[in-house]
């Protein structure tokens, strides 16, 4: 965090409605959120609370309805076209016909970066996510956790300012999930990238983020924001701190409030 006060993401009065009049769904209603550069924010809430919608708007995969969204002072579209955004999905979504290193280098290849340069960068990232030695493997030969590591490496290849993760560990077993949580904490520390993580797990949110945004459905909106002052660097031992359990309890309480609206 070079400048702790600079702002990476600014969302003002964002609303989004799906469908025609009469059967409208308020996916998002009056969302305000500011994320400092280098921050780690988790979005949590039940299905239909708009957390994935919000993430997709940040990544310019979805057009915002009303309101304003700025990333480093620019529109999500401008940032996406500049390759300033990395996105990790629930599925790894690797190309079966490419090796792992070719998959990780894909965004750079699409950007027109020469082979030697992009493969050097991909190699760096494979080392970072613990996939050294699997450069020439095919996605089909890797486990779900390894594929997801490759997807994270791919999202980081263009050195994005903003890393968006949509339930990236939802399909993994608990042990793999713990390990990848720590990888993500490590990546956040060494790269200083701003992270927005959508998750269903309050413990994952507390373990990783500086700020937990609890959302509620119908209409999708922010219920509350929990500041998380757990010391960094975080490790799996962080979970043994009394403050950790306090925050989890607080998070669950806020989530309950959301469910009571349902």
């Amino acid at each position: 965090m070079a400048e702790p006060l600079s702002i990476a993401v600014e969302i003002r009065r964002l609303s989004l409605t799906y469908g025609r009049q009469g059967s409208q769904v308020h996916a998002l209603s009056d969302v305000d959120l500011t994320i400092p550069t280098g921050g780690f924010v988790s979005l949590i809430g039940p299905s239909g609370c708009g957390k994935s919608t919000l993430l997709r708007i940040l990544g310019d995969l979805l057009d915002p309805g009303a309101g304003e969204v700025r990333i480093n002072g620019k529109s999500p579209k401008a940032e996406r076209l500049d390759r300033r955004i990395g996105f990790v999905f629930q599925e790894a979504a690797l190309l079966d016909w490419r090796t792992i290193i070719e998959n990780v280098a894909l965004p750079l290849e699409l950007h027109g970066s020469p082979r030697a340069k992009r493969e050097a960068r991909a190699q760096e990232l494979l080392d970072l996510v613990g996939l050294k030695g699997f450069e020439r493997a095919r996605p089909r030969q890797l486990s779900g956790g390894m594929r997801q590591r490759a997807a994270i490496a791919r999202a980081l290849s263009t050195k994005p300012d903003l890393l968006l993760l949509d339930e990236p560990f939802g399909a993994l077993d608990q042990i793999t999930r713990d390990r990848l949580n720590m990888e993500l904490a490590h990546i956040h520390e060494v790269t200083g990238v701003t992270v927005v993580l959508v998750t269903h797990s309050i413990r994952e949110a507390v373990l990783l983020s500086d700020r937990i945004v609890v959302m509620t459905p119908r209409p999708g909106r922010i219920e509350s924001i929990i500041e998380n002052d757990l010391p960094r660097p975080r490790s799996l031992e962080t979970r043994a701190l009394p403050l950790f359990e306090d925050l989890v309890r607080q998070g669950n309480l806020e989530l309950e409030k959301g469910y009571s609206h349902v």
Partner: protein
Amino acid sequence: MSDALSAGTASGKSRARASRFAERSAAILGDIWPPVVVLVALLGFWEWACMAFAVKPYVLPAPSAIWEAATSGFGQLMYNAGITAWEALAGFVIGSAMGAVIGTAFAYSRFMARGFMPLLIAANTIPTVAIAPIIIIWFGHGIGSKIAVTAFLSFFPLALNMMKGLQSYDRVVADVFRISAASPAQTFFKMRLPTAMPYVFVGLKLNVTFSVIGAIVAEFIQADRGLGFVIMTTYRTMAMPKLWAAMILSALLGIVFFLIVAALERLFVPWHASMEPGR
């Protein structure tokens, strides 16, 4: 690592390679021998039955008689097979190219797909024997009209499979390309086309078998050379063993073409799940 150890692993590696080779050859042999045994048994029974029941050669010639007819007129048969092969190949390439273009247009334009699909289905249901005379009038009595009939018969499967294949991409992968600000051309060549390749090969395999049928049917209608011409003329003179030889040759032509396409498939889409051993 010590020299002894590395030497040990090296010879271990070559031993592993040798045993892998043995395994592979055994697997190939295991694939090959059942059809060979069946074929030899069938030919033996056929030969024996023709002799034992004194079957008239024009009803069912014995394998030895077919062999005799094939070898005595070998040069002439090969020349005619070559003509048919050329017609089938040219028609296959032209028809497949047309099918690929049409299928791509359909995948990208709902209007084109909706508007032209009924017409295409109608065209595809027309019996080849009905359309062939018309095409021969349009394209003349030479090889060109045979190629045109073949092309007409062998574009539909690829058009359909191309369209389906180009539409079958993973939506999350499409999001990955969008996040990476990929151009439409990059999205086509690096994502949609590779995803479509297994479908493309289904279409090509169908096309390649239809192409031999198309060439022979066209020769039936009008020709002065080709396997279809040989079958027609031998039928008129009741030279049945030679007709059988021409028929078997046309089947072999289709099989060879099919195997070539199957080999190309292994080369181009080795990554696909259907290519894994044991499938």
